[in-house]
Structure formats: structure tokens, C-alpha cells
């Protein structure tokens, strides 16, 4: 149950996939080129899809195969494609004036991981769960959350913001697969669908931004204060 009683081999498989996703979040954090973000995000979604399938196979949740396929289709393919179209239309290649150099953001990101690890270790202690998979899942979930917020805070290109939001959601999705694999499928389906709508909305808004504000950088959004 809960994947807590996985054998060491299975647990390390989960661990490898979770850590791979976390590393890809760092790739996004350390890169300046929008296209690299996008590739890293797509790869991260693929890793999460693999994780879903692995959990489904090992813990006997056949519905997770469906989730894995949909994750591949939506998060791994369709959303990156839609964002790629936005990037192409914008002719913006990279963050022009990053608020923090990639190196500094990476250091902050590392701090976020350490903090998440401490929180996760405390939580599992309080719950009397000895499974390392749980600590790992909580750590990755919380640190991807923090890294997503970091991306939202230090980047100001519209597309980076959208990707930051998607990283936030990816973190939750990843944690969900390990912690509560039995969560009713309906929810995950609706969340996938919801993401698609959100990204389409962002696409429309980005077009407005280009048309009316003349820029997609949040640094230009400073008319409304006080």
C-alpha cells in the first residue's frame, strides 16, 4: 500500500525518476534560453509519466497507465508544443535582463532542496513512516514547488512565468503519484484538462500583451501601483 512497502530495487527506481525530475527543474532554473526551459520541462513531464507507469506496475494501479499516457500526451507533448508556438511568434529567445544570474538562482534552488529535505524528514518522523521513498517524494514535491516560485520571482518573461506555473503543478503531480497513487483518477484527468485551458488562456493574454503593452516582460508591467 502507498508504495511504502516497495522493495529496495523498486524504491530506487522511483527515486531515480523523482531525482531526474528535480534535476530537470534545476536545468530550467539554470538556463537562460527559453527553448531550453521548454525542452527541460517536456523531459521532466516524460520522467513523471514514466514514474506514473512504474508506480502503476509495481503497486498494481492499472489506471495509472492511463494517467501516464495522458501525461505524455498533454504535459510532455501538447503543452510544450503550444508554448513553442508562443515563443516562435514572440521572436524572444532568452531572458534579456535576468534579475538573478543563473548561478545565484541555482544556489537558492539548492537551499530550497535542503529546506524541503528537513521539512520532509520531520514530517515522516512525526508520522512514524520509515520509508525513504516517502521522504524523497515529499522532498522533491516541496522543492519543485519552491523552485517554481523562485522561477516566477526571478524571471520576468511571460513564457517563463507560464513555465514556472507548470513546474509548480508538476511537483504536486509527481508527489501525488508516490504518496497517494490510489487518488481517484477523475481528479487527475480534470487537472490535466484544466492545465490545457490555462495554457491556452495564457496564449491569448500573451497576444494581448504584445499588442497593447508592446512587451512580454513583467518589468514593463508597472502602471498599477498603490
Amino acid at each position, binding site marked *: *500500500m*502507498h508504495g511504502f512497502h516497495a522493495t529496495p530495487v523498486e524504491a530506487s527506481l522511483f527515486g531515480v525518476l523523482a531525482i531526474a525530475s528535480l534535476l530537470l527543474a534545476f536545468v530550467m532554473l539554470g538556463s537562460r534560453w527559453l527553448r531550453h526551459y521548454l525542452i527541460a520541462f517536456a523531459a521532466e513531464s516524460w520522467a513523471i509519466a514514466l514514474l506514473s507507469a512504474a508506480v502503476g506496475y509495481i503497486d498494481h494501479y492499472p489506471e495509472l497507465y492511463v494517467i501516464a499516457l495522458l501525461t505524455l500526451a498533454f504535459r510532455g507533448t501538447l503543452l510544450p508544443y503550444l508554448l513553442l508556438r508562443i515563443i516562435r511568434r514572440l521572436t524572444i529567445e532568452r531572458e534579456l535582463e535576468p534579475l538573478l544570474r543563473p548561478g545565484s538562482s541555482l544556489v537558492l534552488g539548492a537551499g530550497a532542496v535542503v529546506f524541503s529535505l528537513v521539512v520532509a524528514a520531520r*514530517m515522516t518522523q*512525526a*508520522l512514524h513512516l520509515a520509508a525513504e521513498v516517502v521522504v524523497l517524494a515529499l522532498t522533491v*514535491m516541496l522543492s519543485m*514547488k519552491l523552485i*517554481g*516560485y523562485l522561477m*516566477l520571482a526571478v524571471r520576468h518573461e*511571460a513564457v517563463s*512565468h507560464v513555465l*514556472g*506555473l507548470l513546474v*509548480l*503543478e508538476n511537483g*504536486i503531480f509527481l*508527489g*501525488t503519484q508516490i*504518496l*497517494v*497513487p*490510489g*487518488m*481517484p483518477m*477523475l*481528479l487527475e484527468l*480534470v*487537472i490535466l484538462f*484544466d492545465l490545457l*485551458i*490555462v495554457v491556452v*488562456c*495564457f496564449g*491569448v*493574454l500573451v497576444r*494581448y*500583451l504584445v499588442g*497593447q*503593452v508592446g512587451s512580454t516582460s*513583467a518589468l514593463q*508591467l508597472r*502602471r*498599477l501601483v*498603490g
Partner: protein
Amino acid sequence: MTGIATSVLIGAPALAVLAMLAAPRPRLAERLNLAAAGLCFIAAVAMTVSAPAAGARYLGRYLIVDPLGAWIILCAAVVYLLASIHACGYMRMPGEEARLPRFYQFFALFALTIFIAPLMNNPGLYWIAIEMTTVVSTFLVAFEQVAEAIEAGWKYIIIVSAGITLALLGTVIFYWAGTFSLGPTYDMTWRVLRHAAPHMDRALLVLGFLLVLVGYGTKVGLAPMHTWLPDAHSEGPAPVSAMLSGALLNAAMAGIVRYLAVLHRAGLFMLPDQILAVFGTASLLVAALFIVRQRGVKRLMAYSSVEHMGIVALGFGFGGPFGVAGAMYHMLNHSLNKSLMFFGAGNAMRSFGTRSMTRIRDYARHFPVAAALWLAGAVAITGAPPFGLFASELTILRAGFRGAGLWAAIVMLVLLILIFIGFLDHFRVMYFEPAGDDAPRPARLGAWTVAPMWLALIPLLVLGLWWPRAMWRDFQTVEQVIERPAAAPAPAARASARMPDARRAS
């Protein structure tokens, strides 16, 4: 009757949207929207009257109609009706005619998403419904398509979507906490969570509640997560601002209250109540500071929304019969009053052609009736008698003075006085400071834009003078659900459970 009311409530706006898509003509869209709003209002009243205390479930338990949800829907339906009437006058400005069908499609859809959220019986689906309200209303905020409106829309969707992912994480944590007693796969509903709460781990419950509170608190506009609110509320058209403020914020508050009930059922009172009180007083403080130095007329109203959501949060945080009843009464009063204020602000903006209060002068001389209504609304929203908000704020304060939230009640009282002075001073300037000689003559106001101000003010006055007993009973049923700890059915035990639980919890 509850079933019929629910289907009308969902069906009317949905059909209106479809009809508008089929025949996109401005006048027709206006009428369809108005008809849908009228039907929704009737359905919401019927729903509030007939909702059973334990909640009626529909569509295989995905929908629930309980007194709390019905009440929040009633508040939303009132605002939807008033805003639809106001929109008939406000949105008919030259040059916008061709885009009116699009506006009303989104407007009705927005109302629909707000109605759906409190009906959701599954916390996960509730999350999605709240996310949908954001997506739909972003386009309404950005509707005027000037740079400011788009900036507001962008900030709105980014900040709220980012914030609300925390609520999703909180939802997952609550589900996880339930798996320890209910097994890996179970049907998560509000009631299942409440029943499982005593068996859940306290650390997980508290973590989940904090995440949910910050997540939905972003949407409610509790400080310090309120930063999107003044922009979105001030840049959308006035009817949209009224809907955002009077209807949407309450719908997001519903989630916080339902999770609060889960924590109370687990015997956790002190911690969540105090945290709510902290967020509530922070909202009041931020609102007070920005109200005093405000220059934009709609931003003034927006910060007032932050203030009133803080008061509602304080009411639920103080708890007890008075706290819950005061908070719920305050929701309706605020919905009526804030609609009135946004209509007045929108009218002033349209007729003077400016958002800045420094350029609105001699308002009462130009528009005696509309100005009197708006001024009465301003007096009401600062909590002065004899209007409804006075009654509800006094009730919340009474709840605060008798419990562990005494400090918050005192802070609330001081800040309310500060806001009273600051808010009304802006009105003194707009009404009584003389205009320069070169001041342009303001444009005229139509009947459609003034009528809903009457319709909001009269009930507000009635609710201030007379608190219907049926409403009080309704609030007490909600209070039973929110405040009851698991193993204490008798009223005496309930009263004693509130105070010493800090020691029990540790």
C-alpha cells in the same frame, strides 16, 4: 425543490451562454443574461430556504447543497442580478456595441463557475471550479483591452494561479492524511474528510490547512496575498468588479471554511482560529493603510474588499454562534454594499471620464440622486448604523470579545475606526471640495445604472434594522457543522471545548 433550484441555477446561465453563442446580437445577449440572472436569483432563494441541514446530494454525490453553500450562492446570485442590471446601462458605451455579446458570454459563464464552486462535494473538484473562475474572469478583467487592463489581467492570472497551486498541494495532503484510516483509494468528500478527521495525523492536518489557507486565501484576497486584487478589481468594467468582489471572494472563502470544519472536527481549534485571525487583522491593516492614501476611486473600493474579507475571516476565526453568524451575515451585506459602491464608482468614472478621485468634484451637485445613494453606501460600508454591516460587524466583535481572539477584536475595532475616517474623507473631498472653473461638465447617467443602486441600498437598510429569525437559524445550522468537535454532541461540552483545547492539542 432543492433539486429543481439546483438545475435552474446551473441550467439558466449555461443555456444563456449557448444561446448567445448561437445568436451573437448585443441586445439579445443583454436580455438573455438578465433573464438568466433573474432565474438564478429565484433559484438561489429557493435553494437557501429549502437546503436540508445535512446537505442534499446530486449527480452521484458530486454536488452538494448545504446551508453554507446555498448561502454563498445566494450572495453570488444577488450580485449577479444587480450587476446584470447595471451592465445594461454601463456597457452600452459607444464603440463597444460589437463586443457586447462576447462580454455577456463571459459574464454569464463567470457567474456559472462561481455558482458551481460551492456546490462541489469533492474538495479536488472544488479546487478546479475555483481555478475555472480565475480563467474566465481574467478575460473580463482584461475586457477593455487597454494596457492597464491587460496588465491587471496578467497579474491576476499569474498570482492567483501560482497561489492556488498551494491549495492543490493542501488538498493532496488532506487526501494523504485520510489514506491512513480509509485505505489508499476512497471517495474524498467534505463529509468523509470531517468524519475521518479525528483519526488523521495532526501534523498533516495543520500542514494541509496552512497550504489551503494560503492558497484559497490568495483568491479571497487576504493580506499579504492580496496584491492582485486592487489591480483586477479596479481595471475591469464596474459590473465585473462587483462580481469579483461580492460573489467570487465569498466562493473562495467557502473552501477555507469547509477545511476549517475538518480541523475543528479533529479537535484543533486554537491554532487554525488564531491563524485565521492573524490573516484577518493583516488584511484590515493593509486595507486601512492603502485606503487612507488612496487616489483611484475603484482602487479605494478594492481595498475595502480586502478589509471586508478580513472581517469575514475574523468572524470565522472567532467562531462560536456569534462569530459564524456574523461572518455569514457580513458576506451578504458586503455583497450588496460592495455592488452598490462599485456601481457608484463606475458611474462616477464614466461621467467624469477619470479614475482619479482628485478629478471628481461636486458630485452631489451634478447627480443629486445617484450621489445620495452612493454616499449612503459609503456610510454603510464603513460600518455605520443603521445599515446591515453595522449589525454584522457588531456581532463579529461580540464573538471576538468573549474568546481567545480578544487581541484581534481590539485591533479590528481600532482599524475599523481608522478606515471609517479615511474612507469617508475621500467622499468629503469628492462631494464638497469646490471644482475649478475649467472643470468639464460630466456626462449624464442612465436609469439602468442608478436603479441597481436603489435595489442594493434598500435591502441593506432593511437588513440593518431587522435580522430575520430564519436567517439566524440557518446560520446556527452552519455553525453546528463548522464548530462541532467529534466527540462532544452536547452544547455544554461544545462551549468548553473551545477554550482549553490548546492544552489538549499538545
